[in-house]
Each structure stands twice: as C-alpha cells, then as structure tokens.
C-alpha cells in the first residue's frame, strides 16, 4: 500500500470446501514489524516482529473460534 505498509491476500479453494480467504497487514517501523490479519476459517491473529542485524524475534497470538488462542514465539539468527 505504501513504503511502510504491506497487505497480503490469499484465497484457497479445496475440494468440497468453501473458499477460504486470508487477509494480512504488515506495518513496518524501523526495526519493528506489526502484523494483523484474519482468515474466513474463523481465525484472527496479530503479532510483533523485531529484527536487528541478523537476529530476529517474532511474537504472535492467534485466536481461532474452535481451537482457541495460540501464542507463539520464534527467534532466529541467520549468517
């Protein structure tokens, strides 16, 4: 959308299933990335990402209407 805002849209059609649409938004602010999105399979999620040099931390939270709330934490180092 702009230099600091990205949007993602993904549609998936499986056999005998209704089409599932996923929409995501990412806002970039210096070392941080803020993300939120939803899919029509009854899920809403949001998260924060921090990246400095080769080091990356991702913290996320998704809320699924049937499966409940799932927090996640990822760290990575690339060289």
């Amino acid at each position, binding site marked *: *959308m*702009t230099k*600091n*805002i990205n949007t993602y849209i993904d549609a998936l059609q499986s056999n005998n299933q209704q089409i599932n649409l996923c929409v995501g*938004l990412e*806002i970039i602010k210096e070392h941080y990335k803020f993300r*939120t999105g*939803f899919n*029509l399979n*009854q*899920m*809403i999620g*949001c998260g924060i990402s921090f990246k400095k040099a080769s080091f990356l931390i991702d913290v996320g939270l998704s*809320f699924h*209407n*049937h499966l409940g709330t799932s927090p996640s934490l990822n760290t990575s180092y690339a060289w």
Partner: protein
Amino acid sequence: MRGKYWGFFILMVVWLKVNAQIDTDFINQYMEQMIEITDEDVDIQQLTDQLFHYINNPLNINKASNSEILSFPFFNQAQALEICNHRKKFGDFLSIYEFQILPSFDKIMLSNVQHLIHVQTNPITLKTIKKNIQSGKQQFMTLAETSAPKNQGQIRKINFETDSQNHYLGSTIYSNFRYRFDYKKHLSWGLNLEKDAGEKMSFNTQTPLVYDHYSMYLSLKDIGKIKSLQLGDFHVDMCQGLTLSTGLAFGKSSIITNAKRNFNGFKSYRSLRENAYMRGAAISIIHKKMTVGTFISNKKIDATINSSQLDSSNETNTTYLSTLIEEGGYHRTNSEQNQFSTASDFQTGGYVEYENNTFKMGAILQYRKLSLPIQPANQPYNYFTFQGYNYLKNGIYYDAVLRNINLYGEFSHCYSNMAHAQTHGALISVHKKLDISLLYRKYDPGFITYQTNGFGENSKPKNEQGFYLGYQIQLKKHLKLVGYYDLFQNLNIQFKSYAPSRGFDLWTELKYKPSRSFHAYYRFRRELKQVNSPSETMANHTVNQTQRHRIHSTFKLSKSIELRNRIETSSFKSNQPTTEGSMIYQDFIFKPRNKSYQWSTRIAMSNIDEYANRIYTFEKSPLYDYPMFNHSYTGIRFYVLYKYTTKRKTNLWFKYGYIQHNTPVQNFNEQYAIGSGLNEITGNKKHTFTLQLKHVF
C-alpha cells in the same frame, strides 16, 4: 510554523463564507448511514436529537475533552485522533480553518462540519445564562399516525359484546406531543407525551396527563463546576455500557468507530422508550481533572407478575416478576394493562473519573432494588440468569489517546452472583489511508444485563466471547473499502442453542464517490451461526448461514432532484432447503431551492421466501419518526413524504405509506396477512397516514 498557512486560511475563509449555509443534508445523510447499518432497534429520538443538537450547540474544539472529540459523530477515527494530538502539541486552535493543516481534513469535510464546531473560549456561568436566557429557543412538535383497514384488536373491540376475546382498549391513532426549551447545550427543559396505537387516552392516577406515557426533564450542562445536573427523567450512560447504560447504542457496523461506546455520564431523557430511563436526580461536579457524579432514581416499571406456591405443604403464594419489560411499553389490552407499572424500582449510584489530555479512567457503582423478586422462566438456558430483589454492580474503565492509537475498555463486576464482563479495544489510525479497530470482549453467562449496552453479537452482554477486527482503507481517491470480521462464541447454552456455539460475521463494503453528485457502493455480508437443529430433539447444532449482497447508487440530476436506486438479495441456508429474498427500489427526491416545500417518494418491490430473508431499508420520514421499514413479504411498498416550511419556522410533514402483500410468506398464515396477532389486518393492503407539526419560537 502556522504562519505559512495563513494565506491559505484567508482563501479558505472566503470560499467557505460563500458556502455559509448550514448543511442539514450532511446530517441527514449521516443519520441514514448510521441507521442503515443496523437491523437492530434504533432509538431514533435519541439519535436525531444527538445529531441535530450540534446545529445550535457547536462543539467547542478547544474546551472539549478527548472523549468528546472522539465521540463527535462527524469526525472519523483519524480526524479525531489528529485533533487530539495537534491540540496537545500546539495548544488551542486559533480558528477552525487551522484544521486544513491536518492531513485527514479536506475542504469538503471542513465545509460540512464548519457550523457544527467552534473554537471560542468564553467560560459559561449561571450569570451568563441568566443574562442570555431570552435567546433560548422553544419548540413544540406533535405527530399523529393511523392506518387502515382496522386490525384484529380494533375489530374485536367493536364486537366486544359478542366476543369476549382480548382486544385493544383505545383508538387506532398513534400520537405524541413534545415541548422543549433549549439555551444552547447549557439549559433545557421539556415535556414528552406519547400514546401508542390501541392505547386508551384517559385522565386517571396512572395517566395524569391523559397520554399513556409522560416524561419531564430539567437539565443543566457545563456551567462552571457543574458538569451535569438532571432533574426529572434522565439517562445514565457510562463508558462502554457494561455496568450501566439506559440509552441505546449501535451494534456491529462498517462504521468501525461504533465498536467503541462514547458514553459520558448523565444526560436528559428525551426519547419515548417507556421503561428505559431513570426518574429522580443526578449531579456531576468537575474540579480540575476530577469529576464526581451521583444519581438517585425511584419509579414504577412494567413487568409480568406471576405467583406460585413454594411447595405443596405451604399454601402461601409467592409473587415474583417473570419478565422485566425494558422495551415496548404497550398498554393496549387488558393483559398489557396488568403489566403497567407493576413494580417499584429504586436505583442509586455514582462515579469518579480522572481525565487529562491523554488519559481518562474512572470507577462506577450501581445499586438497584425492586419491590418484587425477579425469577425468570424455569429453563436450562436461564440457569445462570440473575434472580432476586436487588443487585450491586461496579465497574472500572479507561480511555487513552497515545499518538495515533486510542485504547479503551471496561471491566464490570456483579456482586450479587459474582459474574464479570469485560471489553478492551483499540482504534488505530495506521496511516491517513488506513484505520483499524480491534475489540475483545468476554461476558460471563450470569452477567446481569439490565440497563446495559455492551458491544457484541447478542443483544445483551452475556454468555459471549469474541474478537472484532474492523478496517477502513482509502484505496484510491474515490474508492474506499470498509468492513469488519467478527468471531464470537457463546460460552454456555442459551435460547435456541442447547450447547456452547460459535459463529462469525463478515461485512465488506466498497464505496465509490467520484463527485458530490454521484456515489455508489457494493455491500456483502455473510453471517454464520450455530443453533439447535429444529428437526432433532437432542442438542445437535445446525449451522445457519445468511448471505446478503447490496448495490446502491445515489445520483443528483440537478441541485433539486436526486435519484436513488438499490438492489439487495439475501439467502438463508440451514439444514432445510435454501430460501431467497430480493428487493429493488427507486427513490425520487425533489428539493427545489428557495421553495418552502420538498417531497420524496419511493416504490419498492420485494420477493421474500421466509422471515429469515427479510431486508431492511431506510425511509424518509418526519423528523424523529422511526424510519426503518422491514421488507419481510412478497409485494409492493410505496410512500410519499411531503414537507412544508412556513416563514415563521413552522414545519409540516405528511407521509402516506402503502403496503401490498402478493403471496403468502411461509412463516405467516396463508391469507397474505399483514401483521400478526391483534395487529393483523383483514386483506392484503394497508394504508398508513402520518402527520407531524413542529414550531420553533
């Protein structure tokens, strides 16, 4: 920094002065938009009053709190946040034209709101009011509405001697009378009277003013240290509406700021919702950044009374209230008369609030005592529902503006049954082209929901958990995408759902407005909800899916002629065969310039398989009259509204409405019925006549 903008401001002043005419069309459009987004009950008197109030009482941008700016209905989320931040950074606005330096304001927006805001800083005291009270305005308004042919309630009344069945006691005419005095927003008093169709007008102790419902108020606002003083009938609406809110609020909608309630204490009751108010006194005092308020109310309330024996050995009957009537207020038949003011209702409470430039937080307490205990129907879904004479609730709330983010929430607690309810939300202006609204809520199954207005899927905040995500994206200059996605769960069993259930609600709207003379939008809505399967006796859910598409366009042919068209379809899927509904209408609105009259008319055709496919539309109506029409049948709807304004500020509205049912609807009987029960009329054609008079002096 401001200096370089002054040249531009002067040009704007010249341009805006040319257009210096209060644009009530802008307010009307906003009101239509607000009402059209909901198919829930709308308190039209309250909403109209709230919106038109700003014409005579523009919002003082320099004096208003953040909450007042965020709740100003004509600012969107980004604009409100920008004003709060700008004020905090640079101090008071020198002129409303300074708004032009805010990125989210353009000249069209400013010309629309210029008469609804101001930046003066003169303090108001009692002396000022005494001096200027003669500049206040008085207004009276009366409305009468009737329909033909007679309904069952009236026919039974005529044949009463040979027919002992229940019937209406009064005439078919609905009538109301309203008088008010307003000195700006600071001092007002008024009287409201109402009689529903079928109700009797008589002079007795129950109805001392002849009309079935009467209400009076005296209100002082923002005078010195008095933030609000209410005598007579008044509303108490606090924060997010979980602990106490007697008014009405909007539900989920594409106006994403509606997810947040902007309730702000005590205000006069000017509506005609017959049980939803307080009667007594309320006062709130502001000192620097602290506000303290308290209220006391004692009145009669409508309720259904039942009695039962505690056990077979005890011959004493216990009397209790099976239903507390919060909406309706009909007293048309003998059985409805028996519900008239059957219980006494005492309430008291108060709140303490701290507010500075960026942050507001407070606490509220409410105690309520009824003369008889509430005992709801003995059903499994009422297992957690409150029972008893009295209850005590308290809540804490917060509202903060942090740069381009507005965080808000409320946590409420019922002492009587230890149930909780909470809601937390954020309005985020990510970019001038993108606004987001997030809201999480969790309401216990046993939460006491009398006089509440919490946001959610259910009409009352109980037995629900959910997450709401709303968005507003300016895709191109003339193209905007708005909508929301809401996930919800019912945590326990409830009416029509004998197991915990889930669902979602998706709303998307694409708006195209290339010029002031044309705009169009496409709206899609899909709701999915689990309910009991009607064909099975055991708790076994089926999934109900409702899907709606709408295309709407508005085209101004000239300065005085406007055309509106709409096509809408709905489909309803469950474990039964899918049903469909569709509706098409054409509006013609004629507002000749410099003439004292205007009229609008509509012809609509609908084809509806069953009630679940019903389609709501907004109709032009006399001011304060309920404007929503429910197309729940196959047939025709036609209306014409004529408005005449005299030079002495008298307005006259006349509306004629016509309904014709062509084929039976599955849910109703097979006689093309219009209405049900005592409201059902003979035949398949109905005519409605409405006349309203308003005079300001």
